């Protein structure tokens, strides 16, 4: 009876910890893409002449969603910490999962399927595309491994 009325959970919330990591990973990777490739290297174009207007709208939705996820993710993270329901290991695993997942999605859907923009212009694209998608896949796999490892050692309940 006393346990059920505890105001703050002392054990980590597995689903929320992972998911909050995934969200922050997606948003950080999107921000890195925006800042490094669009602004610093200027490899991507602000707008590609060949982009159809439907793709323009979907691009706008993705871009707007990334910013909301970034802000919302950090507030959720702060809320989980405040309630002591955060598992750092799961959050890191989720972060890598999200970052890798975004990289692969950006490489396959944005660049190849929707053709919003390419990684770089005036070069042979294949090595860039392969490197882009493969690096994302590596992040994705490492993230999955970290999450799996963190979940399997939960009963031990070491320091988080």
């Amino acid at each position, binding site marked *: 009876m006393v346990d059920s009325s505890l105001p703050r959970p002392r054990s980590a919330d597995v689903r929320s910890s992972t998911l909050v990591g995934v969200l922050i990973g997606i948003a950080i990777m999107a921000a890195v893409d925006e800042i490094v490739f669009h602004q610093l290297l200027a490899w991507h174009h602000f707008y590609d002449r060949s982009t159809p207007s439907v793709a323009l709208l979907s691009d706008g*939705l993705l871009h707007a969603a990334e910013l909301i996820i970034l802000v919302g993710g950090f507030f959720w993270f702060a809320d989980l910490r405040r309630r002591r329901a955060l598992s750092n290991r799961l959050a890191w695993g989720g972060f890598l999962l999200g970052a890798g997942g975004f990289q692969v999605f950006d490489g396959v859907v944005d660049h190849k399927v929707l053709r919003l923009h390419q990684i770089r212009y005036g070069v042979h694209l294949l090595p860039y595309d392969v490197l882009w998608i493969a690096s994302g896949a590596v992040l994705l796999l490492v993230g999955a491994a970290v999450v799996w490892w963190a979940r399997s050692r939960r009963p031990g309940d070491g320091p988080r």
Partner: protein
Amino acid sequence: MTVAGPLAHAGHGAAGPTWFPLFPVALLAVGYVLAAVRDPRGWDHRRTASWLVGCALLAVAVGPLAQLPDNPSGHMAQHLLLGMLAPLGLVLAAPVTLLLRVAPPPVRRAVGRLLRARPLHLLAHPFTAALLTTGGLALVLLTPLYAAAERQPVLHHAVHLHYLAAGYLFAWSLAGPDPAPRRPGLAVRIGALLVASAGHAALAKYLYAQAETLPPGLTDRDPEAFRSAAQLMYYGGDLAELLLAAALFATWYHSRRPRPTPSPLIKRFASPEGDSLTQTP
């Protein structure tokens, strides 16, 4: 605020743009500060600061920026300040709460009635407000309204007033400490912010792509100037979305803060289960 149009129109003409729109802005700032000083329970200084920041942004938009020679980037900066950044500062300052604290009872009752009115709930729904802000902007940029507002000062000021009113409505529908009866849940508000921001970003890129023909009806156009205005619109919109999202989630975070819990003893006696009363500690 409504006096801005006619007053500025009276001074417009041979003398060029005027400083008249600054008067209502100053009135807003002074009125709020006087009310805050009169608040018997003491008013949070951070709210006053937020209001003054909002007023300062309004002043920049209708003062110095209006003095610049006509160019698309200047108009875009005015739109960003009037319709997106200043309203957030004003909303976070909780002017309605302040009014309810210092106004005489009849005014308070009238405000209460207004806040309970169905039409207001419909108008202040996040999706209606999103349509009014982003849709209004689309209407200006995609129709000959832009060209008409360039020629007619009254229309120009009416468009600015619409930016401000719709921006305020949108920010209030999403976040802030002011009373907002029947404010929808978090998911609906996030959805409205998403739709409004996506529409704004897509509109900016569309304007960039079609700078040779948009906005329609202009006699002398400089596509390069409209392209840089479109980029300002895109990145300025990002900044506004970031701040709105922060305000929205901060309101959520604040509402979920843990309250001080009653002691176990009080809890035991308040518990509906009968057996807890018979248990002796």
